[in-house]
């Protein structure tokens, strides 16, 4: 069994983003999805700090520090792109205008609760940014994360033990082992990496899995 690496995970998520979609890619691992969007599709990337039609990083030396993404890194604007203020930006999310957002996570529950903003550790300084707005705002929320923690604990759980970002908001989970769909009946396995059996995947998952529909 070969776990997917981060680029393979990004490529897998990118495959599910259709032509014409308005998409927000969260900070961290999800940002990598941009590198794998099919060139023959027009996809609109939104950045919460106020741009739509975000392009790739500029060439070295061409950085414009008034043109940055949510991670505060310099980016470019595609022809046809637009700038707007924060009221408009979060109306795009909260108002249900974004088709897809891709977020990282600490944990996702069987009912699609998301925990990705705060470890809850007493000495941690909390920061939330746009995570809660994205989680409840986009039409579809994709989570992209390793299936287990580095120490082998399940990140897909019956109930989140970390403070939640949003309730029942996740639609799909893309991990280095599988793609899962959150359904009213529970977590449905859409696909698994080659060589992995359902019982093995189940052992690495903290909530019951439903077999893929044939």
């Amino acid at each position, binding site marked *: 069994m070969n776990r997917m690496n981060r680029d393979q995970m990004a490529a897998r998520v990118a495959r599910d983003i259709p032509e014409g979609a308005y998409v927000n890619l969260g900070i961290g691992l999800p940002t990598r999805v941009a590198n794998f969007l099919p060139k023959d599709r027009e996809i609109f990337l939104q950045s919460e700090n106020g*741009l739509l039609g975000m392009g790739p990083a500029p060439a070295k030396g061409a950085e414009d520090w008034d043109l940055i993404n949510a991670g505060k890194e310099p980016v470019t604007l595609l022809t046809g792109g637009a700038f707007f203020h*924060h009221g408009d930006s979060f109306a795009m999310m909260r108002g249900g205008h974004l088709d897809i957002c891709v977020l990282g996570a600490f944990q996702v529950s069987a009912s699609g609760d998301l925990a990705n903003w705060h470890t809850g550790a007493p000495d941690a*300084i*909390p*920061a*939330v940014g746009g995570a*809660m707005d994205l989680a*409840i705002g986009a039409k579809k929320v994709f989570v992209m994360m390793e299936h287990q923690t580095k120490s082998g604990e399940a990140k897909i759980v019956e109930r989140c033990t970390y403070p939640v970002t949003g309730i029942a908001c996740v639609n799909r989970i893309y991990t280095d082992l599988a793609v899962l769909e959150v359904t009213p009946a529970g977590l449905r396995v859409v696909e698994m990496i080659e060589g992995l059996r359902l019982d093995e995947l189940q052992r690495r998952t903290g909530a019951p899995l439903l077999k893929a529909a044939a």
Partner: protein
Amino acid sequence: MINKIVDSLAAAVADIRDGATIMIGGFGTAGMPAELIDALIAQSARNLTIVNNNAGNGDTGLAALLKTKRVKKIICSFPRQADSHVFDALYRGGEIELELVPQGNLACRIEAAGAGLGAIFTPTGYGTLLAEGKETRTIDGRNYVLEYPIRADYALIKAHKGDRWGNLVYNKTARNFGPIMARAAKCTIAQVNEVVPLGALDPEAIVTPGIFVQRVVPIAPAARAAA
């Protein structure tokens, strides 16, 4: 003749008093009115409440203001960053109060203030720690949290161009909180890279109409070293 242009930074912020609530534009350093913040540091107002998306980066701008220990409270969405050491130390030392607000709630609470609304019901944060103890309501099957407007005595913002009536346009993603903060403060002070004559800004493209702006201070565009 109406002329909102103020030539001196010091004069622009001279009447900010102890205990003031001040909105400061910017997302990280893009759109942060660094020169106005420096002018605020140079005067002596203390016991301030600051509203910003972040809580300062590095040792300049908002971070430098926090370092003076004249800020009692900060209302923001994302204080912790790789270079937020000034805030981190104050917070851990119990020397600053933090009101953590999801970014979109920060935006719409500021918008609510500017629009004269008494409160808003927002879906963001429902069921989370940040909504604990707050009134909720289910409307058309969806759950909402009651949140109150954030108003300010002053807004310090950065725009690209302004005219003597206070009309403003911004530069790229440096726009961020500028337009909504300008509407939510009793007195909005905009630093601009360039003052242009009345009529030079396309009326169809003015982002902040002058009614929301009380003072405009021209700043020479800073030659910015790559971070």
